[in-house]
């Protein structure tokens, strides 16, 4: 009996478990998936929690619901991965699993302690993250009673999971304060280490324009060195200081601790991964899906979805002794909530930045690329259902894994 082991039962790992359970012969293979947590979080939903649009119950379900019955699910922390020996040691019962194939989908996580002063003093009092359910829920309680002042949204360091989420947070905050008739009492400042509103130039220009229209101040090239929660200031390495009453932060994102313990990661614990085949750069029976790897694509669920077909096909090819195909193109597709029940959709890959147009049907849509529309907002809202019911189970979506130029205005 051969072993197909998956580490991490989030978006990427769950999709791989579902696909592989259909494709591998159960007389020949056993499939195991390991995760330390019983709960699956719909992470895109965290964004809506601070504003009371979603509650915690909207974004959690048991992981077990999404793992097929012929896959063994193990609840445990991982002590270490030993890729040279094709072996993983678990914390629970000191279990050791030898594998023939390993898929790593251990994700990325926030590390507020990486910024000096961030977690001392004001953490979850007037400094919040919204990348965890705990942070998003605490921020929701704060906003319910806030009387206004200066809200600073800060990105500590790139890369981050879902690079559009900070913008969406700001757009939704602007809307939230309007709805509560207190927008005039709130100053919104967005500080980012990037030179503009987003990572890609053309989208950055358009999104920057929307920020300006909404009266939001953008502070680019701001590399945070320190939070001083005694005086409510953030400081940058080049000596700038910005006061805040409410600091919403996207802390440094890093790969899982087990990647560091296993000596498999780069300086942020992301695993060096071939950006087109999704195979480990070092071990040929190790494959990476989602944001655990260092591929220069967005760290987002849509990207994990577009990786799925490529990683599965390449693993099956490898099992047959064939070379992997370089088919992953860095495709990402993101709905950006812009407030007032509108949204923006962007679609891009390694080589082509987000462009205006219609999606997924050229000329028809129903979604508009790189401009605000109500359909884009409803697409995002519908996506939660699609995520739980189609995407996690590895179901078919109405578009290809590879990006297309059809319907785009270059």
């Amino acid at each position, binding site marked *: 009996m051969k072993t197909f082991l998956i580490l991490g039962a989030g978006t990427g790992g769950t999709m791989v478990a579902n696909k592989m359970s259909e494709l591998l012969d159960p007389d020949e293979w056993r499939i195991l998936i390991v995760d330390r947590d019983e709960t699956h979080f719909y992470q895109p939903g965290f964004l809506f929690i601070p504003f009371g649009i979603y509650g915690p119950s909207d974004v959690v379900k048991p992981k077990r619901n999404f793992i097929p019955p012929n896959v063994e699910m193990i609840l445990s922390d991982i002590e270490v991965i030993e890729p040279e020996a094709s072996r993983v040691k678990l914390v629970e019962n000191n279990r050791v699993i030898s594998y023939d194939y390993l898929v790593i989908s251990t994700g990325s996580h926030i590390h507020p302690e990486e910024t000096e002063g961030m977690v001392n003093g004001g953490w979850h009092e007037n400094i919040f993250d919204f990348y965890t359910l705990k942070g998003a829920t605490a921020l929701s309680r704060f906003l319910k009673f806030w009387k206004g002042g200066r809200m600073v949204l800060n990105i500590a360091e790139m890369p981050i999971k879902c690079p559009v989420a900070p913008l969406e947070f700001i757009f939704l905050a602007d809307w939230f304060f309007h709805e509560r008739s207190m927008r005039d009492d709130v100053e919104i400042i967005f500080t980012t280490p990037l030179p503009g509103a987003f990572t890609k130039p053309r989208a950055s220009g358009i999104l920057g324009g929307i920020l300006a229209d909404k009266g939001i101040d953008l502070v680019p090239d701001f590399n945070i060195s320190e939070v001083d929660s005694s005086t409510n200031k953030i400081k940058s390495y080049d000596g700038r200081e910005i006061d805040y009453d409410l600091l919403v932060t996207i802390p440094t994102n890093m790969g899982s601790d087990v990647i560091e313990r296993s000596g498999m990661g780069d300086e942020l614990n992301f695993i060096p991964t071939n950006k087109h085949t999704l195979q480990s750069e070092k071990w040929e029976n190790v494959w990476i899906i989602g944001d655990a790897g260092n591929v220069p694509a*967005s760290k987002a669920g849509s990207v994990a979805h577009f990786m799925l077909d490529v990683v599965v096909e390449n693993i099956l090819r490898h099992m047959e002794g064939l070379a992997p195909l370089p088919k992953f193109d860095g495709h990402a597709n993101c709905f950006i909530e812009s407030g007032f029940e509108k949204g923006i959709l962007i679609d891009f890959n390694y080589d082509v930045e987000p462009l205006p147009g219609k999606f997924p049907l050229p000329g028809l849509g129903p979604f508009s690329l790189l401009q605000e529309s109500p359909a884009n907002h409803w697409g995002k809202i519908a996506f939660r259902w699609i995520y739980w019911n189609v995407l996690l189970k590895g179901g078919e979506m109405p578009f290809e894994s590879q990006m297309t130029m059809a319907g785009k205005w270059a």
Partner: protein
Amino acid sequence: MTDQIFATNSLDNVVFNEEGFMDDASAWTPEIGEAIAQTLGIQLTDRHWVVINFARNEFETNGEAPTIRRITKNSGVETKELYALFPGGAAKIAAKISGLPKPTGCI
């Protein structure tokens, strides 16, 4: 599009891209590094050279200019010092002086 900078003699014939990064990292020499630093108003010290040598080595190994975090984790120069050495965008300025392409840390 490329344009040439003739700030000092050592930069004659050195080709830069529109953002001021050298087109061809293999054409770099320490003298060119000194000259680029001068045009940016930076007087290079031993500490600068620790970073430059690290960045050149990284590029030769990985084919990419290192990010700030990679420099500070592996070169022995801490973040605050790095920003003080290369004011106005530490990783980018260090890459420019080291004759390397723009770091691709941002996605």
